[in-house]
């Protein structure tokens, strides 16, 4: 039967942030202590700007490589929205360490209705605090940048993690040295110590705010009307190529024509760029 002392650490972030290297280093630290370790993650398509996670479990005996929701001792989140996504994995008495710098996905910036909001949750802070006792927020990226390289962010975060794990700074530093390129060893050492010396709470606490996702604004009152004076159009195709919404097409007589006026966002480019003043957006 599994030892009750099995520790669960979930490390999450966005592709390219260095989540997997960070979890490798934690794995090496555990191994150095003689613990059994399992470390589970997924590679491939998910890495392309998508969600990256690594479950790390260590103790005298580890069975499942993945952590059950509600049982993680620590969540180390490289990004605030990812902290929220994975927060259900953390024990109420557990710890969340979160980098406050956002990575807004391109998918969050696509609603072209007038005055639409960025689809990125607000009030993450309060949502985390309502679920988990110990929430430690800090701007790890700026700390890394001040040390000389943003890419040190993962090591800074490991420094903060080291404060809630049982291992000594020496054990961590030995594992870091073993895992990074010799050229960056000194910088990583400094990044780790900088993260380790952060005292919480440290970041400016944002105003308490209820968790909200996007809020829709009132729909536009009327669809724009795009007028193309066909007798002025000479078929240069500029308006068709430039339209970000693909509202316009070239017709059979090689003149511009409106195909989908309803998707027009009134950017006015067709009107402004038409060399023959043939287009007006009303």
């Amino acid at each position: 039967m599994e030892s009750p002392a099995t520790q669960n650490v979930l490390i999450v972030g966005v592709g390219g942030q260095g989540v997997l290297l960070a979890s490798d280093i934690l794995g090496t630290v555990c191994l150095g202590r003689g613990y059994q370790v399992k470390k589970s993650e997924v590679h491939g398509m998910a890495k392309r700007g998508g969600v990256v996670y690594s479950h790390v479990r260590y103790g005298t005996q580890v069975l499942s490589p993945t952590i059950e929701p509600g049982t993680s001792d620590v969540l180390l989140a490289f990004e605030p929205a990812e902290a929220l996504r994975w927060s259900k994995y953390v024990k109420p008495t557990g710890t969340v360490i979160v980098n406050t710098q956002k990575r807004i996905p391109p998918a969050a910036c696509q609603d072209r209705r007038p005055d639409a909001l960025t689809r990125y949750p607000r009030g993450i802070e309060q949502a985390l605090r309502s679920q988990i006792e110990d929430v430690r927020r800090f701007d790890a990226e700026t700390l890394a940048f001040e040390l000389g390289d943003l890419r040190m962010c993962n090591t800074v975060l490991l420094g903060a993690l080291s404060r809630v794990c049982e291992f000594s700074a020496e054990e961590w530093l030995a594992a870091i040295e073993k895992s990074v390129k010799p050229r960056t060893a000194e910088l990583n050492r400094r990044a780790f110590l900088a993260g380790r010396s952060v005292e919480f709470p440290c970041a400016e606490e944002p105003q308490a705010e209820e968790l909200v996702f996007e809020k829709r604004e009132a729909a536009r009152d009327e669809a724009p009307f795009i007028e193309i004076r066909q007798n002025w159009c000479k078929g240069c195709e500029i308006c068709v190529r430039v339209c970000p919404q693909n509202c316009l097409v070239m017709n059979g007589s090689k003149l511009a024509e409106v195909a989908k006026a309803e998707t027009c966002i009134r950017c006015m480019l067709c009107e402004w760029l038409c060399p023959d003043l043939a287009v007006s957006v009303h």
Partner: protein
Amino acid sequence: MATTTLTPAKELLSGNEAIARGALENGIRVATGYPGTPSTEILETLARYDAEHYVSWSPNEKVALDVGVGGALAGSRTLVTMKHVGLNVAADTLMSVAYTGVRAALVIVTADDPGVHSSQNEQDNRIYARFAEIPLLEPSDSQEAKDFVQQACEISERFDTPVLLRSTTRLSHTKGMVSLGPIAPPPVLGYERNLAKNVLVPSNARVRHEKVLERSARLREFAEESSLNRWERGSNAVGVITSGMAYQYVKEVLPEASILKLGLIHPLPLDLLRKFAASVQRLLVVEELEPVIEEQLKAAGIAVEGKEFFPRLGEFSPERVRQGFQKAGVLPSPPKNMEPEKGLAVQENLFRPPALCPGCPHSVPYLVLKKLNALVVGDIGCYTLAVYEPLAAIETTLAMGCSIGMAVGLQKGGDGARPIVATIGDSTFFHSGIPPLIDALYNNARITVLILDNQTTAMTGGQEHAGTGKNIRGEKVRTIEIAKLCKALGVEHVQGVDPYDVAAVFRTLKSAINHDGVSVVITNRPCVVSPVTIRTTPYAVNGKECDACQICMNLGCPAIVWTEEIHQGQHKVTIDARTCMGCAVCALLCPTEAIVALANDPARRAV
């Protein structure tokens, strides 16, 4: 507490690394495959060892298995690796090498993807073992992954059969402790001429089929005694038959149960299973995906429950296995204080789908194809991500190499309203794009084939292929040139284009679409993340000039995001200097010239 030093005999290895280690320790001399998540790292690991074995990427899984069969016939222990759908490609060879048998060991790794993390389906390849009548081994952690390579080699040689070693994404990509053994020098048995066995003309094939059935009977006897299957005695109230990763989850959530852990999934030890069934009051099968074990037990008349409690869809986890036991009444139902609605809302609203990288050379061609109103037939690779908004250019994705053949059918069976463009990557083109291009030419199709040549196998992490000029070990080799190949086949309209030059891409694709016949356009920029990360001076937006037209947002570049400043109802944009790689495409598109290069890279301070 003092740091204990690492004993050299133990290492933290992923399932894939452990399989590679097992291959080395068991004298594998030939190893080949085609990259495919989650199998890729096996050969990559083998290639890093400086030993006398042959390691290679083949252009596709069938070729890899053919090479593997040859290697085994030559008397060398052989490993062939692929993802689950790769075995479909290699199935033609597989079904017949099951008849001929092998000489030295032939171990085929199929890495399945329950949960569809990075694939087009979640087929259960245990079924192939029954179909081909060959043994299948399924490890449940990294240590077993290594140990089972040895068992697979021994079974392969003792029973003269290819052996399937099945991994899953979770096993392949979970690191665990592995005890290392010595690396064995590969033995060579030598080739032996045996026409009756190795030439499957019908008269021989009929005889060989009989031998296959005889072999199966012997394997069944072997299964009854094999240490691959393990009876873990516990409470007799519930007995669980399980295998692979599911075994770990069962141990985690139901540690007191009696467990029959199967390592050899085909053929099943039916006598042992009967004994186990008789020893417990209630019998459950916990298996991921298809009811492969359950149905065989039922066919053998053993009363068993399984798929009514444990889902047939998706990947298992401790919580899903726990829910199964709760549903079965083996574990008490959970208290009803959970708030599933809230959790669901979080998941639905936090969407972060994978996206093409900042500066990806695939973005512009898709932007242009959308402008040209083309019916874009997609294929397997990073460019599949052009299906998501805002590019949303791809209309089909099926399996490796399908795009060109499907384009021919869409053109022949279609009404000609829209131009038909097949888009395919370089590695996928070598994998299975050439025969359908021959079909298009031979049958006089009117299609455009856009080959997105980024000079690597990008989606799986950047592997070399026949067109990169390097082999798996990074040594310089002959380069197969795609443009020359297309011209040699007889494509009259072959044009190269710089995918960062928006106007050139537009012109080139338009002229290709207007060509009456098969036209090929080949892009020429390398992947921005492999083999090296490309990064030049990042760009920035002059907020005063930005008029929120959203043209740059149409690229779907992850580095371009909205600001909270609204201009005429639309968000102005900003560029995240942390991730911008400086391709300048957005600056080319911007009608107000609001996007300019930064004087220096703010993400990296000079130290």
